[in-house]
């Protein structure tokens, strides 16, 4: 049976890496945001996203 990661998994993994590289997110923040996308997927709402982004520690954006 094929156990390779799905395309969806690859997209989420790559998005997480890109977030870290953007310097607007630290490692933990990038992970928590992408975890939200993974868990909610099609049920995701803009308000969910903004709540999680607003609740992040401010520190990770300062070096941008």
């Amino acid at each position, binding site marked *: *049976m*094929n156990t*390779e990661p*799905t*395309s*969806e998994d*690859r*997209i*989420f*993994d*790559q*998005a997480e890496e*890109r*977030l870290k590289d*953007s310097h*607007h*997110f630290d490692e933990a923040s990038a992970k928590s*945001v992408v975890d939200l*996308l993974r868990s909610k*997927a*099609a049920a*995701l*709402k*803009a*308000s969910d*996203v*903004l709540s999680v*982004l*607003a609740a*992040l520690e*401010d520190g990770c*954006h300062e070096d*941008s």
Partner: protein
Amino acid sequence: MRIHELEVTNIRGIRHVTLQLAGENIVVWGPNGSGKSAVVDAVDFLLRGSIGRLEGEGTGSISTLKHGPHVDAAVSSAHVRALVSLPGVDHPFEISRTMGDPASLQCSDEGARAALEPVLEITRQGHYVLARREILKFITATGGNRAKWIQSLMRLDSLESVRATLVSAANDAKKQAIAATGVVDTERTAFTTTASMTGWTEDSGLAVINLARATLGAPEITRLEPGRVREGVTAQAIAKADMNAVRLGQALEQMRRFDLAELRASADELFKAAATLSQDVEALKLLRRHNLIHAGLELLGDDGKCPLCGAEWEQGELEARLTEELRLSVEVAKKREDLEGLVSGLLPRAAAIRQVFSTVQETASPLGLVDQESLFATVVNNLERYEAALGTPIDKLTPETAQMFGLPPVSDEGVEAQSMILADQVAALTPEISPEQAAWDLLTRLHDALDRVRIAEQKVRSAGILRTRADALRDSYGGAKDDVLNALYNTIKARFVDLYSQLHAEDGEDAFEALLEHDGASLDFHVDFYRRGLHPPHALHSEGHQDSMGICLYLALSEHVNRGIVGVLVLDDVVMSVDSGHRRRLCRVLKEQFLDTQFVITTHDRGWAHQLKTEGVVAPEGMVQFCGWNVDTGPRVNELDVWERIDNGLAADDVRGAAGHLRGAMEEFFANACENLQARVIYRASGQYTLGDFLPAAFSRYSELVKLAKASATSWGNDEAVDRLIETHSVAKQCYGRTQAEQWAANKALHYDAWYTLEAADLREVVDAFRDLCEVFQCPDCRAMLTVSTTDYQPDSVRCACKRLDWNLVKRTAS
């Protein structure tokens, strides 16, 4: 997964049918309306709980539950049962589903359910069934629909939904950032009004505060921070009632300084322009399109395609049209710009007036000036609504909202009269207060105003961070999605090109290329047309080629979607427009490249059904004929091999029936043999060929190929192969001779037509001879027919599908 047995009861046109698949490929063939597609529907219902072709777009009031059961059967009596096997489950087990409870799949082995779940998860997408109508979806769909459909079957549709949500979140964050900036402007205006400043600067604010601090003997401060405004200042005792009178007096003084006439003139100008525009429905429509057209022009790529829907346009045509539309909307866009200019000029002035009126209202009440407090509360309320109305986007104006653009009464007689009354009251109430007390009061109010400014500024910073993060998230996810999907589509495209090239290499499409590219919400699909460039697949290629492309794209996608988990693919009458030669090559692709896949194939085409058998895709026992359908009984199933049918005919002394079966089967068999061996058949313009045309040509070509193979084996010094070929040819000649032995019985040209005149015992000899001769043309292992393969149009070998039989035709060249 493999299906070993399938029992269908009261589904669509089937009353009751049990098919023995034994985990192998099967072809269900029969005329139109014989119930073949009901087998497909039954498999679909079993695995998904619904029938794909009865659901979704265009099916209207048709549904699985209403139209899935046989027309005369109760819903509860319609069911499907299958015996299946799965890797990791050591024995086959039964699964079944009934229309009475379509959501529930019964499983005879609960321990196998966990292994079954990944299969069902994939089959829910329905991409194990390909019917002709689905081929069209691959080929003729717009880029947007193709993307939606393919992403849906690859279970990637949630990706687009996530992307759209992230775009929406980024837009909301942008709006919040803009709104937060507006609040800062308002709070700064309030500060400047309190400080009697003409405009906001940090230095001016500091100067006012330091002046008041100096009055109180406090040192200057250098940073405008709320905590420092009253730092080191001794509090001044001041009665609140007295202070209210002082502040009321100051507010009334500020009111007198307002140029209300000028404000009224600007508001009137805005009101008139807004009222006029709100009546012009066409202009507003044009205005709403203006932004879209503008964005469209910016996004227009070199390919000239519509960036919104992906529709194809001639090079430059869409750009010219959009530019013209933009030109038509320039005038109305200018009107909007003028209106927005008036709004942005009015808003801060209205806010400043409201601030002062608010002070009047707040201070009048504790002084017992109830009538005036009530009047100014109304004015403040009106001004708040006015400011909110000015925030209405211009292109959303209606005659009702335009009415709100009229300035509420802020300088009418009532206000003026009450202001005068207030002024008299203030003169009577205002106590003598010292400069120190006034300075303390000012510092207190500036402290509060500055606190609100700083809070608003902090909110702007937070909103800015939120916006930056939302943008980064949108871009990171969008970029990752584009990268991964394009890599995925490249893999699928490469496989599609590989499969299609195998089917069409001999048509001069050996250098076939294609493009399958993700572009925003669209999926572009272009194919090469004989090295004349890339075009949409239905632009230049024939219908047969389009069908080939659809099948190849489906197979390429299946490999990705099914990921070796489902293992069953259903091809429902998919080769209608594909000719015999290309069907033969498709057989080879199915047999050689999809070894782990069990195909359930339906067709109305007897030739294709038998081609699947002679090419070794389907074993003789996998041939199921549906015939004699009627609404009461459903189809009659004939699973017998042709030889069994002939044997049964002879046993029943039905010579005519047996002769007919033999004649039909042999014409088809040797027609295929002629094609596979590239035999020369005398051309007939009528297209009416008989066994007398095919059999001698096929055998002559067979003998010729044996001779070529012998010559090749001799040149390589392969004596063993030479001996084997001599023996093979000897057996073949003997079999062929036996098939011709009864020629004395009839006119030579017509003797195959005269089999029915023979006695059963004589026909038995003919049958046995033909059965043995057919064996000569087939591999004893894979049952596939011998086929010539070529290099540069020259025969280089004769092989069966499994290559147990493999005659080299190429002689060794002298070194």
